């Protein structure tokens, strides 16, 4: 089935999320929709899927105009969507999840689970998925859960499949497997729209590339383009994706973690006997698939994790047993992975956010009085120094783009006297320009002789930014290797196989 979007326009108030967008997806073709976060990719797909009504333009299936008033219509017309965040019910089995919404019934209106199982087996066999229809979805690995989503779409008889940022939660191996599945589907004649901002994936599978920027199609790209060419098109100016940094000049190992273990509230071990050290002027990247103990490790370092054992030493001083304030006061800078949740107070102004961790001391406070004048001066300086694009220091954090929010967090953390910088996924969800800036700041911090710990889930970031890479899997460190280690090896380590 041929899908065509013609002149789609979608506005939210004064903001134009999609401006006259055209796109054609043909059967047996993978069409990549490439654009930065916030470029309007997801809006476009939500229009297509019937979740939003467009303000202009039309959708055509096999050259016939169709109108979708909801996802139900879209599904009935043969459009399937694999969502970024899975729409699955974890306590249901695979078969139950797959039939949800169009349950087959037998005599008397009873649920016909046997028919559902058979369907799952059929699709699963066709594409070599090896999925047990009776497995509980919550127990399955993320990559397999995604296949359940794909099966769900295929059982609905989808002729057009939309993949919305499908690789964000996958290991490199799982990503490779997904790419293989997409190629298989292509061979079977499905039209695929693949939404992503990851250039490597685009280069691997795309037959056609449409680049979208600020809601507008900026053009089609040749699938053989280089990563830098694609990125430049996506951002609208020349970019250099490589992190520029001189070789590290490591000094003393001032940050040492020894035999660190931690337990969750429920009592399960989330960190298992972790040991590593970081030298002054060195970046150590903790690589691994999300959810393998990285969050707990950073929490343990800054004193937010409850049950811990072992030792974390900075400049010879023990951090375990200290509270967050004491740890920060010893010179630990912390960039949390979720900046809106843990890094900023959205309703506070930029200035207020900049003094969040030092509101109780000089020069920000004198006695109980906030030093407004000093704060204004300080905030204006940081605004300039960190190139925070905002109307002024009184702009609220919630009004800033992700990149500018992260700059506020960095400005706050880097303007203290640091002895260690811990940054968790510091470029998550940022646009290319901001990523460059954040990377520069981190490298500059390293070059000033501070040990830096970065948590990264994307291999490219790990290898480019890190001087050494420690790979985590299930709460353990699989190995610590130089950043020149081949991707394949790192990928295996992320799956728990030590090098």
């Amino acid at each position, binding site marked *: 089935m041929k899908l065509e979007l013609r002149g789609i326009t979608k506005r939210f*108030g*004064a*903001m134009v999320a999609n401006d006259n967008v055209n796109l054609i997806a043909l059967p047996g073709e993978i069409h990549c929709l490439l654009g930065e976060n916030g470029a309007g990719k997801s809006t476009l797909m939500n229009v297509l899927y019937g979740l939003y009504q467009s303000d202009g333009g039309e959708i055509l299936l096999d050259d016939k105009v169709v109108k979708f008033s909801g996802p139900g219509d879209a599904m009935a017309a043969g459009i399937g969507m694999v969502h970024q965040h899975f729409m699955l019910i974890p306590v249901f089995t695979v078969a139950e999840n797959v039939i949800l919404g169009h349950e087959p019934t037998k005599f008397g209106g009873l649920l016909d689970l046997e028919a559902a199982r058979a369907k799952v087996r059929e699709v699963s066999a066709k594409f070599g998925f090896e999925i047990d229809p009776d497995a509980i979805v919550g127990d399955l690995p993320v990559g397999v859960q995604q296949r359940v989503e794909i099966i769900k779409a295929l059982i609905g008889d989808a002729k057009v499949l939309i993949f919305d940022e499908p690789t964000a939660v996958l290991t490199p191996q799982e990503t490779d497997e997904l790419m293989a599945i997409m190629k298989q589907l292509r061979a079977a004649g499905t039209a695929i729209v693949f939404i992503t901002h990851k250039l490597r994936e685009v280069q691997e599978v795309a037959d056609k590339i449409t680049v979208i920027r600020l809601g507008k199609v900026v053009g089609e790209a040749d699938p053989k383009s280089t990563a830098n060419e694609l990125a430049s098109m996506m951002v609208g100016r020349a970019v250099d994706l490589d992190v520029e940094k001189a070789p590290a000049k490591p000094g003393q190992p001032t940050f040492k973690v020894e035999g660190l273990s931690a337990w969750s509230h429920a009592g399960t071990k989330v960190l298992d006997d972790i040991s590593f050290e970081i030298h002054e002027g060195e970046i150590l990247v903790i690589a691994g698939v999300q959810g393998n103990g990285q969050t707990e490790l950073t929490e343990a370092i*800054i004193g*937010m994790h409850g049950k811990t054992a072992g030792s974390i030493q900075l400049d010879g001083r023990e951090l375990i047993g200290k*509270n*967050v*304030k004491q*740890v*920060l*006061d010893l010179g630990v800078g*912390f960039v*949390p992975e979720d900046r809106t*949740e*843990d*890094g*900023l*107070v*959205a*309703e*506070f102004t930029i200035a*207020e956010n900049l*003094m*969040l*961790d030092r*509101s*109780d001391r000089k020069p*920000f*406070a004198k006695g*109980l*009085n*906030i030093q*407004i004048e000093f704060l204004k001066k300080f905030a204006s300086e940081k605004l300039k120094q960190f190139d925070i*694009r*905002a*109307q002024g220091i009184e*702009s609220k954090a*919630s*009004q*800033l*783009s992700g990149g*500018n929010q992260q700059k506020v967090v960095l400005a706050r953390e880097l303007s203290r006297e640091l002895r260690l910088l811990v940054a968790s996924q510091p470029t998550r969800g940022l646009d290319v320009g901001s990523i460059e800036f954040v990377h520069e700041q981190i490298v500059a911090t390293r070059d000033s002789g501070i040990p830096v710990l970065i948590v990264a889930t994307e291999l490219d970031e790990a290898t480019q930014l890190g001087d050494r890479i420690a790979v985590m899997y299930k709460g353990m460190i699989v190995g610590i290797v130089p950043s020149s280690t081949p991707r394949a090896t790192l990928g295996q380590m992320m799956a728990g196989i030590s090098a």
Partner: protein
Amino acid sequence: MKRVLKEFTTGNALLSVLAVLASFIVGGILIAISSPEVQTTVTYIGARPADFFQALWNSVFGAYDAMFRGAVFNYKAHDGVQMIKPITETLAYATPITMAGLGLAVAFRSGLFNIGGTGQIIFGAMFAGWVAIYVDLPFYLHFPMAVLAGVIGGGLFGALVGFLKATTGANEVIVTIMFNYIAVLLLSYLLKTPVLQAPGSINPVSLPVHDSAKYWFFMGDQFRVHGGLIAMLIAVVFTWWLLNRSTLGFRFRALGHNPNAAKVAGINIGLTYVLVMGISGALAGLAGTSQVLGTEKFLTLGVAASFGFDAITVALLGRSNPWGVLVAGILFGGLRAGAVTMQANQNVPIDIVLVVQSMIVLFIAAPPLVRAIFRLKESKREVTA
């Protein structure tokens, strides 16, 4: 719950004004419906419509006119004292309501839903009352000591809630509601035992407070407004300073808006809970002192009246902004003072005022409703860069 609180503390002032306006309109409709004249004339509206509209106007205008004369200025009175008495009555009622409202505003801005105004007012009144009745000192020591005792009483009772939340994770809404019962029943018990009951009395009433511990009745004894009014204004300025200019208030607001970020920034969450509730309770305790050392002059079961709950509405109506709370507090004082005249002069049930107050809460709690009524557009978020 958190989202509701956020809506209350960040919504704009215009919505508050419109909510009040809408409530008065609903109140007017109810006054008309409940008026016997309107009910009679409507039966022959076809024959003599003028009668009906005359009755309608008389009932609604008459009621609100009476309210104005009871709350602001009685232009029908014969002497000056009686003419300005209404506004002083309004201020007398507004004093404790605003003080307690400020306390609740501090808690709301910090993300804590303090429903314990009543209990904290009672504790303030009990502490202040005890010092004012049983301690004998010259006024320059006695009065400050009594007020301080009340502030400490309310503060401790509030801080205890914060302590329970910090150590056990107890929900402050439930704890404060239960603490209201504890305070009411404890007061009731103490007023029947020699601890507070007036010797020889069979009623649950204390001895009157010593003159040396009373607020200053600066307009003389024929008016009920007293020095608590000055204390209230000081409290407004203090609360403004606390929330907007002090490091403590900065941490309170950080906690209120985003406890996670506050924690990551090294703010001691547990201690902050205790401080927030302590200050919130202290301001409610101040309201208690205004009652026992001012308006009432002795302790009774009704010392907190309905001020604890009025204060919640006032804090919400004032968007938890100290100046907004002041305006809302005076409005509520006026509603209370005016209701009495309205009932006496126009036979309008005092409950109409309660309905108006409740409608205000309802309209504030449902901004989309107010927007729909007044055809306002939803305020859009400004996006930069």
